């Protein structure tokens, strides 16, 4: 445990939106991995628990110039302003039911601690947090597929994506008995990553230059000179984060060769995009 603290991971994800087909495998893999319940009517998406949600985004143009992109949105595991661990939700939870793991960069959610004030949901601009408005119920017999690795929630608490933390735990357990200090990249992969038939999701340690996610994202170690709250901006011109300008510092990055898609990741004033789009972290000013 001690060595863990010295060698902090920063688990993150990069999703290739040009590969994403919107097929929904990640969503279902997540639900099935994490004992997410379902109810009779899930067509009201505002009360439908989907830790991983795939948004359909269009370029807003009319026929036949319309384009569509699908954007899978897990919890962004924000590092908060300056990446100090005060993510929008963690900083507001009154009962410490969600915290920032400085050893992993993962934002937790403890269902048994949460008392359901929902402040975190209001604070999260990504709508990544879901409330259990109902008691979860499985049709008779279906509770047999529930996984013991994730505790089923009760009504009245908030839940969200955990980056399949239990898989990290399992990988570490294996490493312990093998007498290894740390885990391999492939030992800890989230359920959405492994399920994605298009291979659009890459997961790993953003702090580890050997990991694919680091190599794709090339995170800027310095704060963005334009906004000191932003840390870890990608130096890959095709990579962006959702609402990066808010300073939430998500650990989920997106990749697209299409400019309109990258622009849809954030809000820009008129004309601003053209000025900003070629800015890729502090290095672009070096």
């Amino acid at each position, binding site marked *: *445990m*001690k060595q863990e*603290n010295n060698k902090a991971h920063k688990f993150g994800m990069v999703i290739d939106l040009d590969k994403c087909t919107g097929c929904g495998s990640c969503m279902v893999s997540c639900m099935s991995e994490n004992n997410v319940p379902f109810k009779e009517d899930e067509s009201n998406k505002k009360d439908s628990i989907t830790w991983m949600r795939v948004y359909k985004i269009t370029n807003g143009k009319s026929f036949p110039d319309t384009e569509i992109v699908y954007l899978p949105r897990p919890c962004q595991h924000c590092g908060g302003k300056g990446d100090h661990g005060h993510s929008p939700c963690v900083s507001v939870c009154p009962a*410490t*039911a*969600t*915290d*920032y*793991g*400085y*050893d*992993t960069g*993962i934002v*937790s*959610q*403890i*269902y*048994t*601690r949460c008392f359901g004030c929902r402040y975190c949901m209001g604070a999260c601009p990504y709508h990544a947090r879901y409330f259990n408005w109902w008691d979860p119920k499985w049709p008779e017999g279906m509770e047999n597929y529930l996984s*013991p*690795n*994730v*505790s*089923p929630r009760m009504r009245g608490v908030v839940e969200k994506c*955990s980056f399949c*933390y*239990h898989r990290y*735990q*399992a990988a*570490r*357990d*294996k*490493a*312990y*008995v*093998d*007498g290894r200090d740390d885990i391999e990249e492939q030992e800890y992969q989230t359920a959405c990553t492994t399920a994605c038939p298009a291979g659009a999701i890459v997961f790993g340690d953003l702090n580890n230059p050997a990991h694919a996610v680091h190599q794709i994202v090339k995170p800027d170690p310095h704060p963005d000179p334009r906004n000191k709250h932003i840390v870890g901006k990608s130096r890959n011109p095709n990579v962006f984060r959702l609402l990066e300008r808010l300073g939430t510092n998500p650990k989920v990055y997106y990749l697209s060769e299409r400019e309109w898609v990258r622009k849809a990741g954030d809000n820009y004033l008129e004309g601003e995009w053209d000025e900003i789009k070629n800015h890729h972290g502090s290095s672009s000013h070096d």
Partner: protein
Amino acid sequence: MSEIENKTENGSTESAGERTAGDTKDDKGLGLGVIFFIVAFVVCFLSGTLLFPKLLYSKREQPFNFDHKLHVGEAGDCDSCHYLREDGSFVGIPKLATCLDCHSEEPMGETEDEAIFAEEYVSKEKEVPWFIYSRQPDCVFFSHAAHTQSGGMDCVTCHGPIGESTSSKPYQENRITGYSRDIWGENIWGFKKNSWDRMKMDDCAECHKQETGHQGYCFQCHK
């Protein structure tokens, strides 16, 4: 004082009408009140401390008596039966199959308990429905591997000298929470003398703080 009470009677016949019947002007009332107070206090305090735990916990015997001491002598250390699997997960209380590694069809000893084991479970191929004293709730992720392999802790620190016991104590379950009494601890106030007397989250955090300098992040122990 009496003056005021008189006033009361005179002043409002309506409201005081009934109550005057039981009213008294002598000061014994106060003394009696104090006595009543003390008696009620003592009775309630004692029942809250002594009777309440009895009501709160149900008590059940294990399916049959298990002699840890005997098994440790025969089979070896704790991890002979309570071992880590290859994937790093912990087996917990061994399944029947593990028992059968030693207990083949015929009884090994002559104890009454082994006879129950053989008749009720081995021959019927039924798992023994042990009550687990240290069972943590579903929200807890506890890695034995992290503690025993990486942390180098011994079993006794948390489980106490159960390996030296010759009999199984009754299992006490909290009627409200379903927790084993060993989680909160035997002491109803939650006081503990030994590191294994309680297994609440605060006890984990305390040790973590001591050993690692940090009480740990939520996900370290929650799932």
